């Protein structure tokens, strides 16, 4: 994630003149979660520069992601790594290993941290301490402070990205999901799945092909698998292929001849074969234990 490089300096309300930020093209948004993702990106990239007293057309922030090259990203990651070590050695005892606080305040939700710009707010607290609150001064060099800030910003970005957006977090370890029984999973598989699937055939080594959460979601419902259809015309002529449209007004398939064909729905006979029908039916019946057992079994198919 990108460093927050332009933030409002104050949270109180104000009338403000608008001024310049970078243009960023972004996508059509339909759902709240997508809007939130946009906010994550936008807030980091084009976050409002409309500050009281800021002259209209003030220079946009620097270091936006569009302008970063791989070398810069690598340098930032290296700085965050050095900062991580510094943090663990000096700060974690009070602020927690993952910044969520302990004896000292939670830094993830700290207003000061959220409004920091290149260390201008965090830096003085680190080097000067907060004697009144029991925080000692840390005699870090400017470079060390920068590393610390890089780490803190990376942690903030990680927390903020901790949403359901694929691929983050897609690193749920198999050990966390494999809480069931291999035997129970196998017997469920033999009873319900083996008429279509085989652990030595189509599912051979399946656990090596997908990461754990993807494997679980795919065995529950491998969405994206298209239906097929046979369309019979009034003349008796039959067309078979991948079903593309069947909305009650028109039916369209990609035929076995590779061509697109469509007809008005009334007047033709449509037989749909949904390969996911069996999965859909099972989806309503699985208990949570079934899910864990099947996953635990499939995870053995390395």
């Amino acid at each position, binding site marked *: 994630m990108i460093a927050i490089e332009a933030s409002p300096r104050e949270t109180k309300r104000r009338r403000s003149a608008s001024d310049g930020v970078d243009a960023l093209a972004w996508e059509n948004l339909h759902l709240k979660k997508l809007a939130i993702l946009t*906010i994550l990106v936008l807030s980091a990239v084009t976050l409002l520069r409309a500050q009281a007293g800021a002259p209209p057309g003030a220079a946009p922030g620097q270091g936006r992601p569009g302008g970063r090259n791989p070398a810069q990203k690598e340098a930032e990651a290296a700085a965050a790594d050095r900062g991580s070590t510094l943090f663990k050695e000096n700060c974690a005892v009070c602020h927690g290993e993952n910044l969520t606080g302990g004896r000292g305040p939670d830094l993830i939700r700290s207003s000061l941290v959220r409004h920091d710009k290149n260390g201008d707010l965090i830096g003085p607290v680190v080097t000067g301490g907060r004697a009144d609150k029991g925080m000692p001064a840390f005699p870090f060099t400017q470079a060390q402070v920068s590393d610390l800030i890089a780490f803190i910003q990376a942690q903030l970005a990680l927390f903020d990205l901790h949403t359901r957006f694929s691929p983050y977090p897609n690193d749920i370890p198999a050990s966390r999901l494999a809480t069931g029984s291999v035997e129970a999973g196998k017997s469920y598989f033999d009873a319900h799945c083996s008429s279509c699937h085989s652990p030595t055939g189509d599912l051979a080594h399946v656990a090596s092909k997908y990461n754990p959460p993807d494997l679980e979601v795919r065995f529950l419902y491998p969405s994206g698998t298209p239906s097929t259809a046979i369309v019979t015309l009034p003349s008796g002529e039959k067309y078979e292929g991948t079903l593309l449209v069947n909305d009650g007004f028109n039916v369209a398939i990609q035929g076995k001849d590779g061509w697109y064909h469509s007809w008005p729905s009334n007047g033709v006979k449509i037989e749909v074969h949904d390969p996911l029908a069996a999965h859909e039916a099972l989806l309503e019946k699985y208990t949570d234990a079934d899910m864990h057992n099947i996953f635990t079994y499939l995870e053995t198919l390395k």
Partner: protein
Amino acid sequence: MKKLLALFALMFALTFVSAACLPAQELDPSQILKPPTNDWPTFNGDYTGRRYSPLTQINKDNVGSLALAWAFQSHSQGLQSMPLEVDGILYISGGNQIWAVDARTGRQIWHFVRPGFPPGGGNKGVAMWKNHLYMNTFDAQLLCVDAQTGKMLWQVQIADPALKAFGTVAPLVVGNHLIEGTSGDTADLPGFLESINPVDGKIEWRWDSMPKPNDPAWNTWPHDTDVITRGGGMTWLTGTYDPELNLIYWGTGNPHPVENGDTRVGANLYTCSIVALNPDTGKLVWYFQSSPHDTHDWDTVMTPVLFDGTFKGKPRKMLAQANKNGMFFVLDRTNGQALLSEPFVPANWFSGFNKRGEPIPAKDKEPQPDGVLVSGGVGTNWQAPSFDPQTGLFYVNSRETMGVFYLTMPGKNAEGWAGRDFFLGSKSMLKAIDYQTGKTSWEHTANGRGGSSGILTTAGHLLFTADDAQNLVALDPASGKVLWHMYPGGGLGTGPMTYELDNRQYVVFPVDGVVYGFALPEALSASSPNLGQ
């Protein structure tokens, strides 16, 4: 002298008459109190949120002839703005931009782009008060724009974008007040509603989604941590208003941290609630919590729809909502008492109802590190439902889903989003719900998986929406029979709206970056008087 006086009198009279004949392009807030006929002056058309128009020129007998009257190209993708229409002008918004468009022809009058900001992304719509328009932005500012010129007059900061607050909601105008909500789920911040002075943007009152220590609701949070300050309860969709009871009704979002309840044992009021507030003071009059102690992101922001009628033989002032958690609720809107609580899609996340009619969450369906299977989720989303007083049916575009919920940040140190969910095998359908029983009277599907568009009903015995295969459709609201359809080349990002100008009724659909205006062919319009006025 007499002649001169007569001339003056004549001039005076002419001035007066011509002034009276000039169309008032402004929107006097008292106009919103009248049901929409010629105009569509607010997000939901009127205060009730029924999205029911009394217009009848387009009706079930002639809707088959509905044809394109005009199209407006915004050249901006993914519009999800509900247009307003006031005195022949449409006001349509997108992120950081507004268009004023001739409602007869679709021609652009002006295009406002916020100076220095990239236009694009979603915005739910603008509000109009007198000659001003109001729009929220992704950096949580409220903009005031001159409706005549499209020039920005001022902006005020509503919430702190550094804490990931943002705004897409269309404010609600109540008299000389703007009622305003906010959004944001990422970094644990509390929600609120504010009344804002439309002249200068100053706050008149603020109601916080988090209770104060002197409120019994304070006890629905633990106080050995500061979790109550992390909040939730975002107010990100426009509410409704009953002028007689003088109450505004608004839905609140989920609590924080999202999908992890470990650190916030209790019901967590006033998150996932419908709240009734006095619009003059911001004081809470009643609440109904649709998802106590939510751990599934079941925001309750869906429109609280207001209508009067009988319930079990007794006349009632009611409020109905089809909730994201898959439940259909009917409340007595004078006091918040639940009259009916009934799932409208299969739902396994609750174990029953408490005596207030609120669902009791099933403990074993809270997100777990190894995942749980949850049905009922995202039964519907923010796109508007509709209530047709002629049929007594409540219409909602619904989904039947099975979700897998993982707790990815267990424990008490979780922040922001602490879980991850996947929704599998969703079936979409438009449902017509009998408010007396909560049972589905009819349903319509186009075998797609998209169905999440808003709905409009009219006194012409019509229901307009987009089906789950993205066709724009007109259905018979009594039976669900399809009377007209058209594929517009994309998804209906919000819902349809309607208005009438020069005895011609238009139905408007914003689809991706294009706004389509449909009407009867001109010859048919002329011979088909509008009985609705």
